[in-house]
C-alpha cells in the first residue's frame, strides 16, 4: 500500500444524486439547465437533511448556460432554497466542467475556506441556442443605423436568404476553434492511430447499452438517479432515456460515419449522445461532517489535469490519469475501478491502448512508464455516455459519483474517474471509499 496522504485535509463525499440523462431529440428539452440542477439539488438536500443555510458554497460546472441563467450556479442555488448569503459560482472547463467544480470545491475545502459545499455539473444541450450569423448581425446593426424611412427601406431590400441561416451554437461548441476539427474528427484521428476499427467501436457501443440496461434492471441507479417530473403529460422519467435496449451489432453496423463520410468509423451509434442532465455531490470537510452530523460515503483523494494536442484531445485521460497515479505513487493495478467517459467508443479504446503503451506514456504523456492494462471488467461496468448520454457540463460529476457508487456496491476501495476535454485536455479524479 502506498502512502495516500496527498493532503492533510480530507475532502469527504457525503452523498450525491443526479437527474436521469435526457436524450436531446431535436427540439428544446422540457427542462432548462437550472431546472435540472434544481430537481437534482433539491432532492439531494432533502435526502441529506441539510438545512438551506448550512451550505458554505455552491459550485457548478456548465459549458453553455442559457442567456437567462448566467452564473447558473447562483440561479440554481437560490431556486433550490440555499440561503441567499451562500456564495455560488460557475466553472467551465468544457467537457470536464462538472469535474472542475468538484476539484475547485475540494480545493476550497482543503484551504479551510468551506466546510460544506454543494458541487456538481449541469448541461441542457438540447437547449443550446440558434444564433444569428454574422451577415444577419451586421444587417440588423445597419438597420438600426438607418435613420430615414427611405434609408430603412433601402436597407431592408438588402436582406438576403443567407442571413436567415442560423448558427447552431451546439455544433460550434463541439468544434475545436484552434485545431479546426470537430470532436468526432479528433476521435477518428486517434482511433486510426491506435488501429481501432469500426467493428471494435460498434462492439464497445453495444456493450455500453447492454451494461446500462443490466444495471437498470439490477436497480443500481435507485439511489443515484432522482426521477424527473417535467415531461408534461403526467409522466416521469426515472432512467437515462437514451438507452437502446433493442440495439444490435447489425443495427450499429448499418449507421453511416458522421464526421468522415467516406473513410471514417465514428457513427452516431458509437459516439456519446447529445443530452441534458445535472449531477450534484455534497462535499464536506472533517469539521463539516462533525458539525452537521453527516456520515461520509467516500473521499476525493486528488484531481489531476493535463493538456495535449487539441487534435488528439480524446487521449486526455491517459495524460491526466497517468499523472495522477504517478503523483500518488500508484499504478493501474491499485485502482479497483475505472470510469472513463465514453465520448466516443474509438476514443475509449484508443485510451486503453495508450495506457498500456510504454511508448505513448513515456514519450508523449511524459510519464515514467506505461500506466498498465485496464480490463473491461474494471471499466464502465454500468455502461457509459454512449448509452446514457454526455451532457458536457454534467458528465465529470456524474462519472465521479457513479464511480463511488460502484465502489460501494462492489466493495472496492479506489476508483479513478477520468475524461477527455475538448480543446485538448484531460481530467482525472481519484476517489476512495472509507
Amino acid at each position, binding site marked *: 500500500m502506498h502512502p495516500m496522504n496527498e493532503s492533510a485535509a480530507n475532502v469527504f463525499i457525503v452523498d450525491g444524486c443526479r437527474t436521469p440523462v435526457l436524450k436531446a431529440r431535436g427540439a428544446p428539452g422540457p427542462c432548462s439547465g437550472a431546472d435540472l440542477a434544481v430537481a437534482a439539488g433539491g432532492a439531494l438536500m*432533502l435526502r441529506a437533511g441539510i438545512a438551506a443555510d448550512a451550505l458554505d458554497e455552491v459550485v457548478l460546472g456548465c459549458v453553455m448556460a442559457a442567456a437567462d441563467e448566467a452564473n447558473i450556479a447562483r440561479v440554481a442555488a437560490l431556486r433550490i432554497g440555499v440561503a441567499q448569503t451562500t456564495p455560488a459560482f460557475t466553472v467551465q472547463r468544457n467537457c470536464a466542467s462538472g469535474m472542475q467544480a468538484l476539484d475547485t470545491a475540494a480545493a476550497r475545502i482543503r484551504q479551510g475556506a468551506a466546510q460544506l459545499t454543494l458541487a456538481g455539473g449541469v448541461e441542457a444541450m438540447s437547449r443550446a441556442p440558434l444564433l444569428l450569423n454574422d451577415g444577419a448581425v451586421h444587417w440588423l446593426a445597419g438597420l438600426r443605423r438607418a435613420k430615414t424611412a427611405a434609408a430603412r427601406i433601402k436597407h431592408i431590400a438588402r436582406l438576403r436568404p443567407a442571413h436567415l441561416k442560423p448558427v447552431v451554437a451546439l455544433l460550434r461548441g463541439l468544434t475545436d476553434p484552434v485545431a479546426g476539427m470537430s470532436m468526432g474528427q479528433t476521435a477518428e484521428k486517434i482511433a486510426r492511430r491506435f488501429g481501432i476499427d469500426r467493428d471494435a467501436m460498434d462492439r464497445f457501443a453495444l456493450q455500453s447499452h447492454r451494461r446500462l440496461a443490466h444495471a437498470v434492471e439490477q436497480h443500481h441507479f435507485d439511489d443515484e438517479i432522482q*426521477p424527473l417530473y417535467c415531461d408534461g403529460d403526467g*409522466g416521469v422519467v426515472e432512467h437515462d432515456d437514451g438507452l437502446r435496449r433493442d440495439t444490435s451489432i447489425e443495427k450499429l453496423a448499418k449507421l453511416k460515419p458522421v464526421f468522415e463520410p467516406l473513410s471514417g468509423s465514428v457513427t452516431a451509434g458509437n459516439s456519446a449522445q447529445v443530452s441534458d442532465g445535472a449531477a450534484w455531490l455534497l462535499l464536506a470537510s472533517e469539521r463539516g461532517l462533525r458539525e452537521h452530523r453527516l456520515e461520509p460515503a467516500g473521499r476525493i483523494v486528488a484531481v489531476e489535469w493535463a493538456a495535449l494536442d487539441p487534435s488528439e484531445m480524446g487521449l486526455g485521460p491517459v495524460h491526466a490519469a497517468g499523472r495522477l497515479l504517478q503523483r500518488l505513487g500508484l499504478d493501474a493495478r491499485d485502482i479497483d475501478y475505472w470510469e472513463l467517459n465514453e465520448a466516443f467508443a474509438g476514443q475509449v479504446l484508443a485510451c486503453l491502448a495508450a495506457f498500456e503503451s510504454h511508448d505513448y506514456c513515456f514519450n508523449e504523456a511524459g510519464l515514467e512508464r506505461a500506466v498498465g492494462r485496464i480490463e473491461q471488467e474494471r471499466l464502465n461496468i454500468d455502461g457509459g455516455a454512449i448509452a446514457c448520454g454526455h451532457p458536457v457540463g454534467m458528465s465529470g460529476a456524474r462519472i465521479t459519483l457513479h464511480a463511488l457508487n460502484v465502489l460501494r456496491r462492489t466493495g472496492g476501495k479506489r476508483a479513478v474517474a477520468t475524461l477527455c476535454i475538448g480543446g485538448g485536455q484531460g481530467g482525472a479524479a481519484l476517489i476512495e471509499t472509507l
Partner: protein
Amino acid sequence: MDDTRDNPQTNEGRDEGRDDAHIGGRDEAHNGGRGERRHAGENRPASEVHPQQRNTGQDNATHEAQDNPQRAGSDDAAHGAHDDFRHWRVERGGDGVAVLTLDHASRSANVLDSAALAEFERLLDAFGRDCPAGVIIRSGKANGFLAGADVTEFTGLQTRAQALQKLRYGQNLMNRLEALPCPTLALIHGFCAGGGLELALACDYRVVEDAPGCRLSLPEVRLGIHPGYGGSVRLPRLIGDLPALNLMLTGRAVGGAQAKRIGLADHAARRDALDAAAAALLRKAPKPRRAPRLRRIPKIAPLRSAVAFFVERQIAKRVNQAHYPAPFHLLAAWCKARGGTLRRIEAEADSVAALFDSDTTQQLIRVFLLRERLKARARKSAPGRVHVIGAGVMGGDIAAWCALSGHRVTLQDRNAALIAPAMTRARRLFAKRLKRRAHEAADRLLPDPRGHGAARADVVIEAIIEDADAKRALYAGLEPRIKPGALLATNTSSLPLEQLARGLQQPARLVGLHFFNPVAKMQLIEIVHGAATGEQWLDAAAAFARSLDRLPLPVRSSPGFLVNRVLMPYLAEAMRIAGEGAAPETVDAAATDFGMPMGPLELADSVGLDICRSVAATLQRPLPRSCAEHVAAGRLGRKTGRGYYRWKNGRAVRSKSRAEPGRDLRDRLMLSLLNEAVACLHEQLVEDADVLDAGMIFGAGFAPFRGGPLQYLRDDGAAAHLARLQALAARHGEHFQPAPGWDALK
C-alpha cells in the same frame, strides 16, 4: 366623528388580513402588517403627548426630521386645526408637497371608516386655506394601501336616506380632493380596493407598486352594491367604458403592471422606487390621463342601450338577476348617465343607496362579515415546510396549493409514477397562476417517494385512502419521525378523528384538515377536532389554513363533519327523485333556481358517485337505488363520462327541453338540506348558527344572497318550513322527519 365607536377589541380581529387574496407572494408584507398592528388603546398616550410635542417641536426642522412614527397629524398642513390626528400623518417636505399617510390607528388594514374620513375632511379644510404645492396620499401599513370603505358602517343603516347621506358625504370628500388646485397623487402598494381605489381615482395621478401583491379592484358587486364614491364615473373616464364596466361588473383585481398597461395607473415602480417615482411625477405634473376618445362610448341613450344589451347578456350567463341585482343596476346606471361628472356622481349615489335597501345586499354584506369572522380565527402562519402523504387528487392538489402559497412542500407516495400526475397538475396550476414565475412555486414542491421530508416538516398532512386501519398504520410509522412541534393533520373527509387517533403517542396533535375538491377553488377548510385534540394544535391548524388563504371552519369530529353531512341528504333526495323518473336537468334546475351554484346531481357526478357512496356509508345513510345502479354499472360520473349525466370534455351534456321544477321538488331538495343543517346546529357541531351558515356558503356554495341555510330559515319563517317538512314526511316518508332543534329556531 365619534371615535369611541371603534372598539379595538372587535375591530382588530375582524379586519386582520382584509386584503384580497395574495397568492404565493407578499408574505413579508403580511408579517409587516402584523408587526405594525397597534391597539387604539396603545396609541392613546401618543396622542395625548402630542400637544407638548407641538410646543417644543414647532418650527424645528430637525425635530420634524426625526420622524416619530407615533406623531399624529402635523401642524404645518393643518394650520389652525387644534385637535390631533389619529389615523393620518402629514409631512410637508421642502418642496411644499404634503404627504398624507393613512395609518389607521385601530385597524391592521387601512379602511375609510367614518373616523378616517372625518380626519380627511379636516385635512381638506386645511388645504382649502393653505394649499400645498402637491399632495401625495399613501398608506402607512405594510400590507397595502386601502381596503375600502368600512362595510360594517353600512349594515346598521335603517333607511335609504341614511345610506344616501353617508354616500354623499364620502363622494363630497372625493370631489373636493379632485378639485384641489394642486396636483394630487395616490401612491399605492399592496391591496387597493373599493373606496380605496375610488379615492385614488379622485387623484390626478396614481403610482402603483410593480409587484404581484399589488391588487387594484372595485369589488363592490360582490357585496351586492356598486362603487359609490364616484368610482363608477371616474373609472370609465380614465380607462374607457368597456374596460371599466368589466372591472366593476366582475369585481376582479388587476395587478400593478396591468394597471399601468390599461391606464389605471400612470406609473408602476418597484417598491424601493415608489417614493422617488411619485415625487418625480408630481414635479413633472403632466396633464392628468384620460381615456382616448375611441375608448369612450358617447352618452347617447340608444347607443349605450345597445352596448348594455350585449354586456347584460354576458352577465346573465353568469348570475341570475333575481338573485344578484347589483351588476344590472350598475349597467342601468351607466346607460342612463347624463350630464357632467358631478351630476353623474350624484346619480351613482342614488343607485347605490337603492341597492343598500335590498335584502340581497344586506345578506351579501353579512356573508362578507362571516368571511372576516372565519379569517379572524387565526393569523396566517409563516411559510414553513409541509409534508403531504398521498399523491392522489386531493393530496396532490393540497401539496400544489401549499407550494403556491409559499410553503416548501414534499409530496410522498409509494413510487415516482404515482406522484407524477400530481406534479403535472401542479405545474399547470402554477403556470396558470404565476405565468412566467411558475418555477418559483414548482421549485418549492419536491416529490419525495421515500418520505425524507416528514422529519423536517412543520405540518404533515395525510391524504391516503379512506381506511382507518391504513391511516393508523401510517401514523404508527410516522409519529416517531416527525418533529415534536409538527402538526399532524389528516384530510379524511368523513372518518371520526377519535378512531384515527387511537394508538397515537400524542393524540392531542391530530387535527383534521378537510380540504374540498377542487382545492384551488374551494375557500373553506374544515378544521376538525376530536375529543382528544388540543387547543394549541387547533390554533396551529387554523393559522396554517390562513397561510393558504383559506377560511378555517372549526368543526367537531363526527361522521361527515359539517359540509358533507349537510349536503348528503340533499344529494340523496336528488338521486331519489331522479330514480322516480325525473330528468336530472329538472332536478338540478330546482336547486340552481334556489341559488345553488350547481345542481345536486351534477355535483354528485362531479365528485364521483363511488365517492358519494363511501361518504354516505360512513354516515350510515345509504344512498338511493339509482345511485347504486350507476356505480354497479361503472357509471361513476364525470370521471367515467357517465353518471346521472353524460359528460363530454368535463362538462355535463344537458338536454334543452326540461320540465319546470315544481314547488314540491324544490321543497324536497332544499328541506333535506335545511333539516340536516338544523340537526347539525342542534348537535353543536360548530360554534353557532353563523359559523354553520359560513361553512355551507364557503364550503358548498349555498346561495350567498340567502345568507346561509339557517339565516334563510329565520328570514323566511322557520315555522312555515317546519310545516312543509312535516307534510313531506307524511307524503314521502321517514327521511323527512324533522330533526331535533327546529323548536329552537322558532
